[in-house]
């Protein structure tokens, strides 16, 4: 793994070698390892250690960007020459924003854990062996991954911006399979010591066993208890369809022209907060601006979207520090969404339900209508019928086609337990489970 000093040295050399009016360097360094298992054995086992450099220049009101992974002076010079050439071949951009001046960032939450960085292939194999033994004992096949890694981000520019952040993540995901049906559980953490492999495996195994002999039910509207993993799809799609400034300004967002209006159930509050101790904690964005805490939805009322400098200028407001690497055609995006948790356990949600479905998670969710935020996807790895406050039977998988606002407008209960779920560009969302009424399933499948 590259150290902060090594990364900083590369950035400084680029800034020194550059002849452009303004220069920005964005460096990602990653050391990642992943063991994959299937049919109760390790099937793939990989490691990577790499660095990626992106240089953006502004020269004579023109922009250019070049990337590479070689850091010797000669390669850096070649990159910069390329950038100057690309810039020279363009028309002038009168709206080009100058790069930001030096910024100060709040202290980030702790996101680097030595335990995770040092976790080795043998440690992963021992955990996987335990999981596969537990599954084999019950006549199940285990499939999944155990991964761990360190990632670093560094942003610097010729006007004094300097930001460096390093974080670790580990993820254990287990699918326990028997015949046509499976159970699934996952734990994603910053500190690998928090992963108890047996506990994750037990949840998956129980779902697989309880999931045998599923009954056929007809699609239609149901009360659903969505476990946190099932809620993540709704937050992820909302983050990029609706909560960034670009679709909002262009009136492509569901939230366009809805500032101050009640859009969701009044128990729904959604913030973007890199400073929550559960978050990944990157305190700056990819143009070097400090990341602000933004309230997007408060008690069901739509408050705000997130901005970068470019969209903020158009909208006549200030950046919230949510830029993606510039230039880009997506606009800014929230990376640390937190759906405010409630006070109910999954058991309490089940007990309160006369008739409903308990959903583990969804598969291959995709957008049906971007403006109305209608999405569709399949249930997966454990759907259970709840009758008179008890889980009674396993149910075959179904397809939902539902609008995100409709889902968030029918929330009866919010869970107290949350999970960390990985989001775009190295972000992470904090997500509780939900009890939702009138949730629409539109078709079914054969297993």
């Amino acid at each position, binding site marked *: 793994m590259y150290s902060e000093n090594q990364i900083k040295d590369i950035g400084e050399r680029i800034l020194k070698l550059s002849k452009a009016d303004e220069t920005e360097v964005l460096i990602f360094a990653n050391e990642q390892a992943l063991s994959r298992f299937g049919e109760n054995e*390790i099937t793939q086992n990989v490691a990577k250690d790499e660095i990626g450099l992106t240089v953006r220049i502004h020269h004579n009101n023109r922009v250019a*960007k070049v990337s590479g992974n070689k850091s010797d002076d000669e390669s850096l010079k070649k990159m910069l020459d390329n950038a100057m050439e690309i810039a020279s071949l363009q028309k002038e951009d009168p709206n080009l924003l100058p790069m930001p001046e030096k910024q100060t960032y709040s202290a980030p939450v702790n996101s680097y854990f030595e335990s995770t960085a040092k976790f080795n292939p043998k440690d992963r194999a021992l955990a996987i062996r335990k999981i596969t033994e537990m599954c084999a004992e019950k006549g199940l096949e285990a499939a999944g991954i155990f991964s761990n890694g360190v990632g670093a981000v560094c942003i610097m520019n010729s006007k004094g911006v300097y930001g460096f952040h390093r974080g670790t993540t580990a993820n254990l995901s287990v699918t326990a399979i028997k015949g046509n049906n499976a159970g699934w559980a996952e734990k994603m953490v910053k500190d690998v010591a928090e992963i108890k492999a047996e506990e994750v495996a037990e949840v998956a195994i129980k779902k697989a066993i309880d999931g045998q002999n599923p009954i056929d039910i007809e699609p239609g509207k149901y009360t659903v208890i969505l476990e946190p993993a099932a809620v993540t799809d709704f937050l992820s799609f909302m983050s990029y369809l609706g909560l960034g400034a670009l679709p909002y300004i262009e009136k492509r967002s569901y939230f366009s022209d809805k500032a101050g209006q009640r859009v969701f159930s009044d128990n729904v509050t959604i913030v973007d907060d890199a400073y929550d101790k559960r978050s990944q904690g990157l305190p700056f964005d990819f143009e070097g601006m400090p990341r602000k805490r933004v309230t997007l939805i408060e008690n069901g009322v739509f408050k705000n979207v997130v901005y970068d400098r470019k969209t903020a200028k158009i909208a006549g407001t200030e950046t919230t520090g949510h830029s993606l690497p510039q230039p880009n055609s997506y606009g800014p995006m929230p990376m640390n969404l937190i759906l405010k948790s409630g006070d109910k356990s999954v058991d309490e949600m089940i007990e309160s339900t006369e008739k409903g479905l308990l959903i583990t998670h969804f598969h291959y969710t995709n957008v*049906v209508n971007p403006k109305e935020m209608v999405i569709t996807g399949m249930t997966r790895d454990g759907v259970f019928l709840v009758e008179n406050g008890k889980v009674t039977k396993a149910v075959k998988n179904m397809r939902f086609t539902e609008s995100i606002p409709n889902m968030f407008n029918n929330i009866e209960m919010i869970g107290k337990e949350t999970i960390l779920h990985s989001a775009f560009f190295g972000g992470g969302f904090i997500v509780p489970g939900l009890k939702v009424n009138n949730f629409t399933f539109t078709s079914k499948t054969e297993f």
Partner: protein
Amino acid sequence: MKKYTDIALNTAKVLGANYCDIRIILTNHESIVTRNGGIGNLDKTESIGFGVRVIVDGAWGFASSSVLSKESIEATTKKAVEIGKASSMVIRKRVKLADEPVYTDKWTTPYLIDPFTIPIKDKLELLYAADEVMRKDNRIKVATGNMDFIREHQWFANTEGSFIEQVLLRSGAGISATAIGEDVQIRSYPTSFGGQYMTLGYEMVESLRLVDSAERVRDEAIALTTADECPPGKRDVILGTGQLGLQIHESVGHATELDRVLGMEANYAGTSFATTEKLHKFRYGSEIVNLVADSTVPTGLATIGYDDDGVRAQRWHIVKNGILNGYHTNRELAHVIGEERSKGCNRADGYDNIPIIRITNLSLMPGSWELDDLIKDTKDGIFMDTNRSWSIDQKRLNFQFGTEIAWEIKNGKKTRLLRNANYQGITPEFWNSCDAICNENYWQLIGVPNCGKGQPGQRAEMSHGCAPARFRNVTVGVGHKGKSATEV
């Protein structure tokens, strides 16, 4: 490069590996996106690195690095062997590779014009010209243009003695217009999500005539905002190539990747209903459905000389006269279905990933219909084209696709324009309802440059050839105005 590949192979042998291969890859990538007359993205990337894969004590190990030096290759190979030893703690069977001849060869994508020699200025001018046409009407709020060029120069060597050098070149380009009125509607050309991609040079971009198509793209996007919604119900559906390509991809391609079928993707991408006992027996589609996998078809995105197992490119039937006839395989798993040789489908995303089974170019063979005759022959149907959204269950049975554009067909005539069209089905039922396929004059390869699979996630590319085809009695208009299909 041989001096580098030898270091890995020798180091692995000394450390006790039974098999080792190394891939060194130099990648050049140029990505250009224009948006509303300005730069959306403009990135030129050059990266190099290598990945070493070993079999040690019957188990796989893999490690990669972006530093190409003797010390780094030795250290990375050592790391791969250590990882392989850890894998061997949890195996039930030893990895055994199907035999493949030893090759010393160089293979290059055939092309006319190297896209990296065309000045950025010319590329931007072309995209800006299309942009200007699309934004001539102020109801178009977002116009985008896109070009993408990737050259992968690879050197592969293994301990069996193969040394294969390949230069793969892929080009992509497209435009899109988003109209905003009552509704938000996008229209793109030649296909959605970045346009058409092929293994060709800049000649492909020129042949697309993006600027000439910009007016139609603009007008269709605007017309769609006020078009009627696709009504729910059961209808005959004719799929254009811009949608049928992805239908093949999702419901046949992924379902016949042998690693999925065997449960190796169960935790992520999923498994498959097309299990091995169905081989040569299961009726996948109607008699006229022939789906051919072909890593040799000219201009296909998965057209290669050799895969990342060092297996030479091949052509075979996945579905023959409607019956399941084969799978996508690699050297590790071919034996499971009683085959002695891999079909050459093991491909890796870049130097830093392990090869896994990927769909190759998979195409529906043309039929005999003229498109006009097919429309004339359809009483009550919908013609849908250009994919907008896709979703399918983890066994690849229940799918739902949305398209950018659709027209109603009434009594043999293409009539009103429809927006937000979608259809849903179950894979074998759907392919069995296929009763007409247009002829070879309508057949074209549709590139999929962004197929995701594996953990860590890997991207791969492939093409799907097809001509418009008709499917009977399909569920359409799911979720129309908040009404579910079950309420129809």
